[in-house]
């Protein structure tokens, strides 16, 4: 791979809470190159959003502790000053948030919100900034952009608001776009439109996209590479085809097995992963997935490192089983990847 645009190493984030120290992100490392779409997949509490938000300095607070680095153009974002981050945010790295209903200012016209962001980074006269906003709104597919620029957020539907969020994120031509569950709040037909839009924007601008999602369907549709997170750690990382056709971690098998598919005959019963994800304030020792894993053995009480176990070197995972064991154990039915149920685990 050429020089990565953004390189995250050993990122750790913890928060002091009443219940004790919550280790939300525990040693996350990844690279992302220009024009690449990296999907960060995980369930609630896996640390995927905290990782993404930390890159923008959005998790900074008196109770938060950070370590590790995130190198962007030779500069570490984790230790950068707040003032410096102000310049980076929006201009170099921009974010699309999950909930378009609550992430726009309800009492300000959408055009004015985007103009404000542009003028925070560039000395552009009002008329020109407005002209750019109209262009942006057209680019993200808002019809009659010249009229709609003076609308308030409540005058838009959810899908249209998410387009406004994307226009806002793109307003200063960022090099990295972080999208945190950008389509989760939307209907499927609108989701398809938005994903198509993100893909074509990547093609036009060459921006790198970090897509945080829980939906493996969305991942299969749009990502180039995938990182699967569980309880604060990346448990598996590889190309799209690695993750879907040669998954190495039992948690990934469980995720792949429990999604409902509309293109295959329906199984008599949906394979579920038994049990619940651990509390981040009290995680099991060793492999965090151990209590829910049917393939657990003695070695699992030691933390497995994230390393390449499969030939090729680009596909990393955190599981002690041998590659041969994994390839034979992950099939619940011939040709079908899933996780066996674990005997004696709570439902």
């Amino acid at each position: 791979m050429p020089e990565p645009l953004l390189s995250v190493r050993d990122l750790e984030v913890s928060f002091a809470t009443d219940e004790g120290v919550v280790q939300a992100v525990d040693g996350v490392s990844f690279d992302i190159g220009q024009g690449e779409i990296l999907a960060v997949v995980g369930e609630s509490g896996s640390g995927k959003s905290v990782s993404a938000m930390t890159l923008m300095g959005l998790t900074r607070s008196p109770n938060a502790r950070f370590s590790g680095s995130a190198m962007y153009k030779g500069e570490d974002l984790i230790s950068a000053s707040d003032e410096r981050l102000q310049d980076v945010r929006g201009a170099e790295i921009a974010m699309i948030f999950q909930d378009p209903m609550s992430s726009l200012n309800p009492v300000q016209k959408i055009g004015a919100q985007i103009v404000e962001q542009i003028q925070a980074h560039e000395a552009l006269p009002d008329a020109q900034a407005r002209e750019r906003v109209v262009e942006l709104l057209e680019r993200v597919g808002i019809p009659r952009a010249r009229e709609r620029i003076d609308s308030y957020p409540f005058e838009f539907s959810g899908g249209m608001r998410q387009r406004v969020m994307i226009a806002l994120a793109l307003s200063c031509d960022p090099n990295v776009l972080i999208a945190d569950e950008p389509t989760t709040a939307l209907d499927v037909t609108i989701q398809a439109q938005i994903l198509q839009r993100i893909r074509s924007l990547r093609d036009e601008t060459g921006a790198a996209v970090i897509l945080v999602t829980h939906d493996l369907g969305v991942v299969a549709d749009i990502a180039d590479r995938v990182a699967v997170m569980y309880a604060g750690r990346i448990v598996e990382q590889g190309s799209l085809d690695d993750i879907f056709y040669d998954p190495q971690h039992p948690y990934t098998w469980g995720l792949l097995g429990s999604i409902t598919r509309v293109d295959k005959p329906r199984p008599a019963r949906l394979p579920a992963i038994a049990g619940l994800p651990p509390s981040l304030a009290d995680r099991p020792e060793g492999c965090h997935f151990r209590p829910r894993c049917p393939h657990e053995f003695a070695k699992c009480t030691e933390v497995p490192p994230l390393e390449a176990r499969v030939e090729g070197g680009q596909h990393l995972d955190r599981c002690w089983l041998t590659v041969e064991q994994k390839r034979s154990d992950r099939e619940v039915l011939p040709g079908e990847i899933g996780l066996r149920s674990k005997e004696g685990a709570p439902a």
Partner: protein
Amino acid sequence: MSSQPEPDGKLLEVEHLKLHFPIRDGIIFDRQVASVHAVDDVTFDLIEGETLGLVGESGCGKTTLSRALMRLLEPTDGTVRFRGKDVTHAGHKQLEPVRRDMQMVFQDPYASLNPRKRISQIIGLPLRLHGAPRDSIENRVRELLEKVGLHPEHLNRYPHEFSGGQRQRIGVARALALEPRLIVLDEPVSALDVSVQAQIINLLDDLQDEFKLTYLFVAHDLSVVRHVSDRIAVMYLGKLMEVSPAEELYTKPIHPYTGALLAAIPIPDPRENRRRERIVVGGEPPNPINPPSGCVFHPRCPRATDICRTVEPPLARYPSGHLAACHHPMNVTEDEIRAAERDETSPHGCGDELPKDSLETVSLPGSAGAS
């Protein structure tokens, strides 16, 4: 209308149900200026023991419809019969015995449990309201907790001590408390993580077998309902577009809207996803205050022609028992079109004309690897 004997296995009968929300305006004279056509002439039956999936995007009226069936809202027009008894305009007193038999599980497991009550109080409340003796309640609650896969010792905990999936189990236990016949599940797994969704769906499946329950399963997309439904109804802008035996809807969607819904679901299989031809439907659902003329889907439909803009299509019944309201159906043969009949559940205002052709020149958006 008075109570009739329960006709052959029909637990719930809905006829030409309409629910319009008035929009009022005026300073001195309060007058109705328009109305939101949330549910617009919907007819269907629920057969004892079956699961009907009700699918549609936000704003299509699926939640309003399910609330009207539960009589949490009063219908504007049409009838709802539960076990042969007309409950369309029944008052509080008349509804009390009926409500025992119809329960609901809500979408948001965080908002639907009172945060200040213990689990025993939450699950025990319906029992108390319906006059169960005090000393029997605790045992019954323990029994219910066990049924939904929670530890009976959790009885005295508060909702915040549980995860989303566990809370949804509590919601299910509460719905089961009175041994209902019908449970309306309003997006019961939409707020949960995928691995937990599968657990809840499997639980609902087991409970249905054990207690012979009838489910109305409301959902916003077609992926989850497939695993629970015997039949699926697709709704758009207050109307039924298609009603089909569950499996057939996925292999042979007849209405282009269903095709679009299916095509829009990304398949978690990158190679399959790349191979499949996908038509992304443009636009958004129109405003239900002023729905389009003719077929309500025509402004977004790739197959729309003149007739679609002027005449509302009736629900045509195809030989397999599959209903679809479309002038230019997909995935049907010439023979099937000739054999189609106008179904008696068609809305009042629609045309009589049945489809003549299937426009097979247009490629099918929904046939995603489904042959």
